[in-house]
């Protein structure tokens, strides 16, 4: 039962949920806004673009709003928060011996297939998150907690999109013996 023991090292979902809820409340209480992550990745990318192709950034309204002329896209709370997420994830994994270069995948596909589908999934996720003005954390969880109507519609849409597609790509995640 080694597999079982390994899985048991994760927190109970309700305990994790309560702690995350308290953290989310504390964030709103202290700062007036919630958690986020894709917005931070966005700003880091725009900062890089601004170094490489500053004229393009200045002439694209969506980018200029973050990094046009004298604006510094990194001067924003969400960038610091993303740095914290990376550090916190690393420390948590490191304390539990989970920092290991490896590929987590369904047993029916190769690591290479998994990388391709992860990359494709990431493209859709990044595009969709900007389209929706926030990702699962910034739009869904944070907006959900302050009862934004749009955030709840968004949350339902994320689950709907996932369940509509799940059957078509089930081979990606199906367990071993396909019987």
């Amino acid at each position: 039962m080694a597999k079982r023991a390994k899985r048991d090292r994760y927190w109970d979902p309700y305990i994790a949920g309560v702690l995350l809820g308290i953290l989310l409340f504390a964030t709103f209480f202290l700062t007036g806004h919630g958690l986020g992550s894709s917005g931070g990745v966005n700003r880091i990318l725009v900062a890089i673009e601004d170094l490489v192709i500053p004229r393009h950034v200045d002439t694209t309204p969506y980018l200029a709003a973050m990094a046009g002329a004298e604006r510094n896209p990194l001067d924003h709370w969400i960038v610091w928060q993303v740095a914290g997420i990376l550090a916190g994830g690393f420390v948590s994994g490191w304390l539990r011996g989970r920092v290991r270069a490896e590929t987590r995948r369904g047993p029916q596909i190769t690591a290479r297939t998994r990388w391709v589908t992860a990359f494709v999934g990431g493209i859709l996720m990044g595009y969709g998150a900007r389209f929706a003005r926030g990702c699962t954390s910034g739009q869904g969880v944070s907006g959900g907690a302050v009862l934004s109507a749009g955030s709840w519609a968004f949350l339902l849409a994320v689950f709907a999109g996932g369940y509509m597609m799940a059957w078509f790509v089930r081979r990606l995640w199906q367990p071993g013996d396909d019987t």
Partner: protein
Amino acid sequence: MAPFELNEVVGQVGAWTIYTMIGFAFGFILESAGFGDSRRLAGQFYWRDLTAMKVMFTAILVAAVLIFWATALGWLDYDEVWVNPTYLWPGIVGGLIMGVGAVFGGFCPGTSLVGAATLKLDAIWFVAGTAVGILGFGETVALFNDFWHSSHLGRLTLQDWLGLPAGVVVLGLVGIAILAFWAGDILRRRIYGGTNES
């Protein structure tokens, strides 16, 4: 009264420190709940592992109870709290695209960061994909700018929309969530057998 203008209270460096600490706790919790492993989120879409739904809605509702409790006690000014403005249809379209991305990728942007921080190679590919998607959006949004700004309903909350007090809405959602967790576990055991995940 809360919330505070952090930059004015603790200075810029103090504010950055607080944001980094908040992020640290966020990343720590996500990793501890197992979201560094893509199979965890993917399992939600096959009803094999309901952790994503349980963590997410527990967090949302615990925070909602505390927020509206603090507001009722006069400790927090809800009018000063950022409520994501509703752009109904762009939000729904974006959400559908993300749902498809989640079942392909096994992550959302936040969880992929903790996956990458613990060296999961699939998470690193996912983060790279996210970067491409985000850049792609910045380059293409001008093509459908009108739609992207359509159905803007401003600061629309569920309590405004339903015409009910916030406390009633929160209680109702808590009831729905408890029912969903309970029924979800029964269904999961019926399909896959065994005990609860975690």
